[in-house]
């Protein structure tokens, strides 16, 4: 139990010394994606080999090591999920990609016992070989503040976090600054909420600070529900203490005693790691009564979501913590006045809290020096879709889409042409070629009808049907609508109906206008943010890809040949040998003909499943 600043400083010195003594460290990525790819087997293999070879090794900092051991640890997510499982060797900074258990021995011999690189396991791009993580283009262009420790430290060790100067910001705040001074630094930094809206964090905090309520709450929104976004998951899994530190600082500023972290149920690993982190912090006296011997008393509970995207909305989230249906309520009153349990509540997302320690430590001015004036700092994005390097990235605000897609993302997959990127998930819009050089920040995106959202970037190539993408997002929103307010409940249902009939080839003239009419009412009158932004993906695809809508509706054609119901399948009589195989494979009985003469498809009966196309040995069944 740490009872004073000196206690913490002594512990930090001790852990630093122990960490420094680990002359080589093997960091095995244990993020969700790498675990799925078998990274835990790698860990076991390394441990087994080390034992067999009698190598002196440690797995934690809590025990005094003998001599100078090597460290083996499960790290958090490196972000380069596409290339997993990943193994990093420190201090050389080698990054090995797509490592298999049989590679472990070679790594151990070459890079741990020896100090050279196993080149065949490094990242290659074309003729280039990148031995070091930092030289890989994917990482080189990034600016990692929030994600600085992700993949670099053992996510389950408070010791490593402390050794890497973790909780120094808390220490500085508690012993050198008043709550007002901490707030002032956050204000100077102009940190804006990373959850989507971009509301200034300091303003929110000061509004809660001002309230004269007995109870106040600090709530962390870890309900990262946007499909295609996993930044917060990575922070919770890889560097949970950074976020806890941010929450404790918020509690110090606002005078709250209790915090909650709401984590979605789909993130079991995050729940587990956060649970470990909270327990460790309590044991050290960093959470609980009289933190580090001061007057600050603050503890955190984890609340698991149960599967409802709408709970990412503030009032739905607090309702869910209270054990109710996660339905947003009308505002005012606002969450800062009447939030959780009707008390003033600071509600920020994971990334926002994770930004705070560095701001307190380095000062608001430092933070402000990164990125543009009105949207300073960095932003983590989940880069996915038809792109070469998918994964988690962090860049300075104001980085252009082109830099992200082509430099970090390595360009489009299979040499396809870039078509659009969906930003901000189902609440966002799409950006097209004309936006490639748009610096990404809160205000610029808002101007073009999109939003940063939680930071999902889904890159789409020329083969993606934008009407189908709009349908996909509408289907998502419709399924996740809580059902409370009429425009969202009924309106999204009707918009989805229309989009479904368009992609099925049953679109009618006037459908686009009806979509726009519905979109206007929903956007203007829906109760919560989910509803208000539900129509955005449809509106933005109509805006930039109206021709695709028209092709579906008027010509009954899907220009990208994505929409199954609009496929036109026919048999080329010149190639058909009349074998009847296609007819036998047709589930709808749509193909008829005489043996040894060309068969025909009855397009009225055809369900466009394509079974005939794959059945035909003579490539006679063709598609328009």
């Amino acid at each position, binding site marked *: 139990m740490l009872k004073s600043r000196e206690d913490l400083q002594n512990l930090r010195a001790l852990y630093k010394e122990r960490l420094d003594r680990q002359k080589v460290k093997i960091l095995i990525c244990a993020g969700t994606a790498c675990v799925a790819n078998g990274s835990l087997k790698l860990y076991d293999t390394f441990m087994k080999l080390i034992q067999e070879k009698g190598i002196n090794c440690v797995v934690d900092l809590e025990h005094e090591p003998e001599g100078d051991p090597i460290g083996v640890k499960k790290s958090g997510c490196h972000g380069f999920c596409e290339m997993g499982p990943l193994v990093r060797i420190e201090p050389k900074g080698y990054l090995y990609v797509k490592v298999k258990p049989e590679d472990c021995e070679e790594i151990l011999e070459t890079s741990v016992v020896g100090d050279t690189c196993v080149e065949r396991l490094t990242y290659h791009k074309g003729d280039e070989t990148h031995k070091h993580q930092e030289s890989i283009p994917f990482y080189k262009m990034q600016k990692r503040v929030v994600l600085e420790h992700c993949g670099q430290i053992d996510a389950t060790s408070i010791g490593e976090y402390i050794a890497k100067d973790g909780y120094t910001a808390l220490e500085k705040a508690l012993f050198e600054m008043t709550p007002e001074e901490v707030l002032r630094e956050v204000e100077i930094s102009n940190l804006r909420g990373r959850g989507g809206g971009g509301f200034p964090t300091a303003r929110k905090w000061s509004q809660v600070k001002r309230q004269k309520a007995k109870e106040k709450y600090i709530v962390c929104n870890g309900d990262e529900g946007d499909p295609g976004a996993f930044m917060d998951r990575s922070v919770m899994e890889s560097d949970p203490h950074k976020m806890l530190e941010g929450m404790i600082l918020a509690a110090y500023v606002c005078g709250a005693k209790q915090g909650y972290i709401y984590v979605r149920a789909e993130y079991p690993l995050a729940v587990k790691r956060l649970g470990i982190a909270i327990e460790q912090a309590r044991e050290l006296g960093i959470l609980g009564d009289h933190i580090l011997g001061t007057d600050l008393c603050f503890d955190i509970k984890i609340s698991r979501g149960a599967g409802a995207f709408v709970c990412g909305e503030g009032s739905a989230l607090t309702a869910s913590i209270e054990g109710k249906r996660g339905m947003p*309520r009308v*505002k005012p009153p606002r969450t800062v006045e009447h939030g959780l349990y009707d008390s003033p509540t600071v509600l920020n997302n994971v990334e926002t809290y994770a930004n705070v320690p560095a701001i307190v430590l380095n000062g608001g001015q430092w933070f402000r020096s990164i990125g543009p004036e009105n949207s300073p700092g960095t932003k983590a994005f989940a880069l996915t879709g038809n792109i070469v390097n998918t994964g988690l990235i962090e860049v300075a605000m104001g980085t252009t889409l082109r830099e992200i897609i082509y430099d970090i993302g390595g360009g489009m997959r299979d040499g396809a042409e870039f078509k659009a990127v969906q930003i901000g998930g189902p609440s966002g819009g799409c950006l097209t070629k004309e936006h490639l050089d748009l610096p990404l920040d809160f205000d610029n995106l808002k101007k073009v009808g999109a939003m940063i959202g939680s930071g999902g970037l889904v890159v789409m190539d020329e083969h993606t049907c934008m009407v189908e993408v709009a349908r996909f997002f509408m289907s998502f929103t419709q399924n996740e609508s*809580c*059902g409370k307010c009429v425009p969202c409940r*009924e*309106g999204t249902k009707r918009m989805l109906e229309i989009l479904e009939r368009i992609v099925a080839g049953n679109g009618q003239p006037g459908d686009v206008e009806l979509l726009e009419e519905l979109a206007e009412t929903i956007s203007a009158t829906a109760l919560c943010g989910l509803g208000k932004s539900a129509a955005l993906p449809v509106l933005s695809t109509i805006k930039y890809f109206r021709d695709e809508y028209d092709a579906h509706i008027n010509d009954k054609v899907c220009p990208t040949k994505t929409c199954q119901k609009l496929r036109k399948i026919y048999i080329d009589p010149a190639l058909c040998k009349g074998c009847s195989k296609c007819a036998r494979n047709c589930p709808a009985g749509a193909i008829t003909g005489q043996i040894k003469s060309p068969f025909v498809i009855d397009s009225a009966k055809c369900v466009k499943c394509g079974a005939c196309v794959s059945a035909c040995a003579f490539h006679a069944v063709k598609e328009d």
Partner: protein
Amino acid sequence: MSRDFVMVDNIPVAIEGEKNLLSLIRKAGIELPTFCYHSELSVYGACRMCMVENKWGGMEAACSTPPKAGMVIYTNTPKLRRYRKMILELLLSNHCRDCTTCEKNGECKLQELAERFGIKRVRFQNTADQPKLDDSSPCIVRDTNKCILCGDCVRMCNEVQNVGAIDFMSRGAKMTVSTAFHIPIAESNCVGCGQCAAVCPTGAIVVKKETDQVWAALNDKKTKVVVQIAPAVRVGLGGKLGQKAGDDLMGKIVAALKRMGADEVYDTATGADLTVMEEANEFIERLESGENLPLFTSCCPAWIQYVEKKHPELLPNVSTCRSPMEMFGSVLKEENKHSRRKTVVVAIMPCTAKKFEAAREEFKENGVPYIDYVLTTQELIQMIKESGIYFSELESEAIDMPFSDKSGAGVIFGVTGGVTEAVIRRLAEDKSSAELRSIAFNGVRGMQGLKETTVQYGERELKIAIVSGLKNAEDLIQRMKSGETHYDFVEVMACPGGCVCGAGQPITDAEGKKKRGAGLYAADKMCSIKRSEENPVVMSLYGDLLKGKVHKLLHVDYQKGNR
């Protein structure tokens, strides 16, 4: 004195403590459309019909926005009209549109607003499942096809009544209002108070009608139809029949019923006088024995069901007195025991739960109920309209013999605090009119959900509580259980405000409810007999018909089924 104003459609409107823009705008004489706003329920804000436009073109829901000085809002802009029409079209697209055959025809909020906003086309197909009608309950009928999910019933059932028989199920477009596991409402913990139907803006929850059966009895020459009319009914129907809301129209009701074919018409207040006698005796007995205190009243059948379903441990505390309707019913059946014609007793009640009460096994003799049919005030109004009688031109007629007398104490049963006041009148040793006044001003009157008073009885100071609304009752029970408070006598009415605000009454606002209560107190003033024990009918009943049968005809053992 400087005052704060909001500019509503370019007209300054003073802020006078309104809690939301909606009340302020309505005060300014503009009827903003709403489905989900009820001043007595929490703000839900889901129908989005009450949105107004601010000076920047932004939208605000008037129901949830507090008025602030300097606000500039518009209530009728092209944008708003577009949005309201779209919302109505969306609601109608999912809604059964057979208006002419709907119970709520002419009273439906959706119909009214669709007409007001001129919705002439619906561009979307109704693709929703067509769930079955739930008519399992004797009190209410639920038709989910007509539900617009405004949540009024859910909030009423949960917030005000603390019953929670219905709630939202699923979410999004699949959301419905339902019981747990979609069981029939009769099998749920519903207590039949009907308040859900009272707040439902459409025909999704309506009161179950028995008018056809009553017409058949009225038209059948071989059947003698005996009608009793509850106190609250007489002040409940004025507004709907071209009379002043809250006025006592008992005489006209008697006349109308006679024209429709009723053989005898009586006043349930007479039954209430019997209840006062019995309940006062029971109270005195319990005070003497010290057992099963506090004594809870038993007039309200929804309250009885609430106790049975939620607090069976309190059943010994509930009075064994039958409700006035049932006391009078058994007296009427006993009186007509030897009649040549079949006697049918019809009770006209402000209440839906009475329909359940009449069907209870406890209130049947050889399988025949004491009360054959219960009509609500709404059903009576419908029958009067159907009969074509010019109600306003009817001459008042008197209650029939031999039960033509009632006391004012019996009449005030229809409003919260009335039972208590009647019992106190009975217990008071001082029978002066000054004492009557002092009882009335001792905290028993008023529409508040919880009232408390103390009464001197001999050496003892009795603590009395009066609650209406079952959530208020629950809070009181919890406070008593925790030992925080103690009472000797507790009057409970399930409907907030008592029977005048029953779910069988025509729907009205807070002002209308107050008028009904005032109407009953005015009727009490007009009564020459003030106390139940002074009612000659009561005296003669005890001396004759009830001799040796008091227990059999006037009491009930609700614990039987729970033992």
